[in-house]
């Protein structure tokens, strides 16, 4: 693999994994839950 390909791939992965983890962190530490059925 070329260096450019490595940089492109790792940068894209970092953004995607970072955002995914951040969202799950916010979600799982949230105190709000949806109510059950009404």
């Amino acid at each position: 693999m070329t260096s450019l390909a490595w940089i492109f791939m790792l940068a894209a992965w970092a953004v995607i994994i970072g955002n995914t983890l951040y969202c799950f962190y916010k979600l799982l530490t949230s105190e709000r839950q949806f109510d059950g059925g009404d």
Partner: protein
Amino acid sequence: MAKERWASRLGLVLAMAGNAVGLGNFLRFPAQAVQNGGGAFLIPYFVALLVMGIPLIWVEWAMGRYGGRFGHHSTPGIFQSMGRSPVWKYLGVFGLWTNLMIASYYLYIESWTMAYAGYSLIGGFNPESSVQWLQQSPGDFFANLTGEKPNHILAISPWGLGIFFVCMAINVFILSRGLAKGIEIVSKIGMPLLIVFAMILAVRGLMIVPESEAATATFGIVDKEAVASPFEGLNFVWNPKFDSLTNPAVWLAAAGQIFFTLSIGMGSIHCYASYVREQDDIALTGATAAWTNEFCEVVLGGTILIPIAVAYLGLAEVQQKSGFGLGFMVFPTLFQKWGWLAPAAGFMWFGLLFFAAITSSLAMGQPIMAFLQTEFKLSRPQSAWAFGAMLVPLAFPVACLSQKTFFDEFDYWAGTFALVLFAVIETILFAWVFGMNRAWQEMMNGAELKIPGFFFYIIKYVTPVFLLLILIAYTFQPEGLVPTIDPATNSPVVDANGKPEMVARGWEPYIMGPFTGQPLPEWQWSGSGMIGKLLFLDLPISPTATPEEKEFIENVRIGRAVDRAVMVAAFIAFAALVAIAWRRRKEQGEPT
């Protein structure tokens, strides 16, 4: 009737992620990347994700939740609740129509995963098996399953057809049993399992070392059948190329893939979101589902199929064979290297793909069912079976004719073009008709994630302009034939007859011509543009074609013409149902 609501927060996120994570991530994304030049595809893909995918996720969630407040759970009603003109409900028909069209071929692929899981479990794909029937290669099994034969318009496989109908029946049955229960349970079990297995596959795939490179390899498993390093495939995907950035067909493919994979432009997100309460968060929930999907698609999906396929087939053949079927050829070959684990691995992988696919296909049925339940007061089972009844006449030609006809056409017109068109319509409605200030307030209502302020301007200006540009450029795409220039001599290359060799550059010569002073090429429609496709320019008959090949292409053209008539008829039928529903609403004094 008690109103259906989501049982838990995590359940909704997993259901949404399950809806988004499907065959698009592990089979369609790699195929699209290969067909559109690997690294050349990924740049438009990420631009599309930023300016269309992520903003539209929030737009659709907000629209769905807003419409749900008025008791609407499908896009005709949701659109009508946001725009005053009666035309919006008819534009919302796309949110029903697209789901039906996509489901009719998506379920067919889903049935392949079922067949592959079953055949793997009983020890299939094993050339050393004592049972002859289990010795079939993945390619032969695929041909037998689909009935596809070169230059044959009919592609009938009775048992393939049987599995397809079983698959449809399973979907309809689950749909008839309810929203929260069925989908949440399937997602909660299937999603984490699928992600773990995909990670294992990615690592194992990258460890393949072809025998020719064994001496220089520092790690990995030497494989006699491998013809290239899997990293060659990874390099093809990730080495950025800028030459196709002026090609609208690549931009449309990238936008289409973003929409397909995130289930945007289909009306299914609107439907799910319409069951969310007014003060519940949608910003964080939508973002979580979207980024989980991107993780599965780019990090996992991009690392599994193409590297493994390149390792066993070589890059050139992968580029030729690329399509939904590629994964069905490649994975069993890899699993056969795992010895006694092969049946379990094949069963688990294709079984999990089936899980991923079924959560997506169930989501496709929801908007149509919600429409029938809300507007025609059908019960849930009745609406589920009505959806099944609509599917059968469309699914039948998908399964019985060459994939170049109904299958490819549905994937193209409904699975790509209509998604982009629907996104244009909903962005204009949300940002310009409903009003961006109200729209932003609606998105931020109850938000547990602060959406960055620049998305206000992206949604209002960038997204619609971008979408419109892609649609216009793509619709009118020219061939843009220019002479091939030999870089060594800087002169035109000529063929054996002394004629200059021409290369298709699309819009590029027309855009750059005024700046470079080069003469503009004569206008010709491109076969990869919309008008070119309507004129069948993507199905040329070569002068050297055999009579059999000529007859096949002529039959494919007829098949596509019939298919287009069917698609138009289905749209008109949905529009008629909407008209009847609104007349009834008026007569009964319900809000219209």
